[in-house]
């Protein structure tokens, strides 16, 4: 078996949850690949299995069956510590509820993955500043999450996701908790970093948000319903 050259290669991924006697098939035979530089949205109603898929792609969970290659590594065969390294080095997470450490400055929040990745302290601060400036928060370095708006907090989270220069940014409902005007700002940030070469995989249930992506995959009842190029991509940046 050869190692695929695509960034992400999913082959017949299935995930079954057991709750007592009842088996729930969250994902069934999911196969698709993602190339470097793509901006992909995975859409589906709640309960469709899109969060489970995101957890598997994010190396937070393992599939029941199937193969998953990320950047040449077969993820489901890795040990717990190796998975932690994958999450640290290859994946940048952006969560719906931002998940920033409370009462901790933006700078410190962005530094955390670099701290686990063994980046030297002065370098950490330098990079954290760079990415915070990139998401437009150069003047909010020492603010804590409580002092920032939802949109600003999410931008801190994006800076954090970028900090280890990962292979892919995984965003789970990144605008789910943000007012619509600020949501557009977030999408602008995503399109900008995508333009710089970052691969983005975004999960959303909002059609409007999905329109910002170049490619859209629809999931229904744990199976791929549709996988298409988004011809009408809505561009924020010119």
């Amino acid at each position, binding site marked *: 078996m050869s190692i695929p050259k695509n960034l992400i290669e999913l082959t017949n991924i299935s995930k079954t949850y057991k709750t007592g006697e009842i088996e729930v098939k969250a994902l069934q035979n999911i196969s698709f690949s993602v190339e470097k530089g793509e901006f992909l949205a995975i859409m589906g109603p709640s309960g469709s299995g899109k969060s489970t898929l995101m*957890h598997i792609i*994010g190396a*937070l*969970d393992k599939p029941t069956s199937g193969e998953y290659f990320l950047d040449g590594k077969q993820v489901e065969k890795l040990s*717990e*510590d190796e998975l*932690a*390294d994958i*999450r*640290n*080095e290859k994946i940048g*997470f952006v*969560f719906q509820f931002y*998940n920033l*450490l409370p*009462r*901790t400055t933006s700078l410190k929040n962005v530094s*955390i*993955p670099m*701290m*686990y*990745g*063994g980046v030297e*302290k002065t370098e950490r601060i330098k990079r954290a500043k760079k990415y915070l400036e990139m998401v437009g928060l150069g003047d909010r370095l020492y603010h804590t999450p409580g002092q920032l708006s939802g949109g600003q907090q999410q931008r801190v989270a994006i800076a*954090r996701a970028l900090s*280890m220069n990962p292979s892919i940014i995984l965003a789970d409902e990144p605008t789910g908790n943000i007012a619509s005007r600020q949501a557009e700002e977030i999408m602008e940030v995503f399109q900008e970093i995508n333009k710089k070469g970052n691969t983005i995989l975004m999960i959303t249930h909002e059609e409007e948000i999905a329109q910002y992506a170049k490619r859209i995959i629809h999931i229904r009842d744990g199976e791929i319903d549709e996988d298409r190029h988004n011809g009408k991509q809505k561009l924020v940046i010119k």
Partner: protein
Amino acid sequence: METHELIEESLLTLTLNKARTFLAMLGVIIGIGSVIALVSLGQSTQSSITNQIQSLGSNLLTISPSSQAFGGVRGGESIQSLTLADAEALKESTLITTIESVSAEYSSRGQIIAGRNNTNAQVIGVLPEYQTVRSVDLSSGSFINQRHVDGLSKVVVLGTTVATDLFGENSNPVGQTVRIDSQVFTVVGVTASKGGTGFNNPDESVFIPLTTAQKILYGVDYVGSISVSAISENVMQQAEDQITQVLLNRHKIRSANDADFRIFSQEDVIGTITSVTGTFTTLLSGIAAISLVVGGIGIMNIMLVTVTERTREIGLRKALGAKRKIITAQFLTEAVMITLIGGIIGTILGITVSAVITNHMDLPFVISLKSIILAFSVSAGVGILFGWYPAQKAAKLEPIEALRYE
């Protein structure tokens, strides 16, 4: 992640909830504080008693009467086995080469009255040698001399405390009279203070000629004890052997096992007291150590609550690449920080309490490095021991479960 960063992180987390951190520390503070204070106080008492006994003369041997044993059975009455003649014999025997001076004494408690004042004190009948043997210093007047002893004189030397009780501070009682058991005595001297407290305190005694005590006050022909000072501390054992030999001969007893007297050195007394105070110190520290364990359980309890509370944070940290051992290290560091800081505060508190009490009670302040080091290792140990389980619980959380946790 380096150690100093872990420490920085955990200190930061601990300051986020100051009240809770302090409460968690309290158990350790009290535990360590009481261990340090009790050990220190125990050692202070011990050194105070030891000093006091040594100040009475470290080359001192005391011979007390004891019941003679007949074939393993000791009789109950012959407590009168030592006499002034025994003391004279020890003084004059050619067999004895290691003795400097010999004093015999007979003591009893008595009421001392001077004018309207009166006090209860140890009345000790002594020979002039008593002054050398027990190293008694006088602040005024002179000690009992041979003429007093020979003449059954009714003269008395007062201990400082007794002098103060009867005549007030800064008075000179020499030449005045006091009454002891309705006999009038002339004060010829006052001792200088030896300090200290406790039994047989020379400051709380009065000294009269032995013969006066025996014949006029108490009507006895034996002595309570004989004190002997050896020529140096190095010949104590020889001196003891020689005294035993002479006295056995005089009392016509063949075996030392049947002796009707016992010889104590100050070392024996110190040894006994040291072992008694040592036992008490250990016992009290043991009780204090229990509070340390209870404190440790308190820390475990709070750490467990913290883990539950911070489930989302732990999930996030894992998603961002923290390995199990880092999460374990983080929570363990927090627990150890609580106990270490608690240990430092407890040590300071314990030392302060001990300093205040020893100062108040006029005891020497003793603090041993050993007990501080012990306290620190114990507190760090408590942190590791009781922080381990919560830290493991945190490290084993599944990242998705933790992220989902509301």
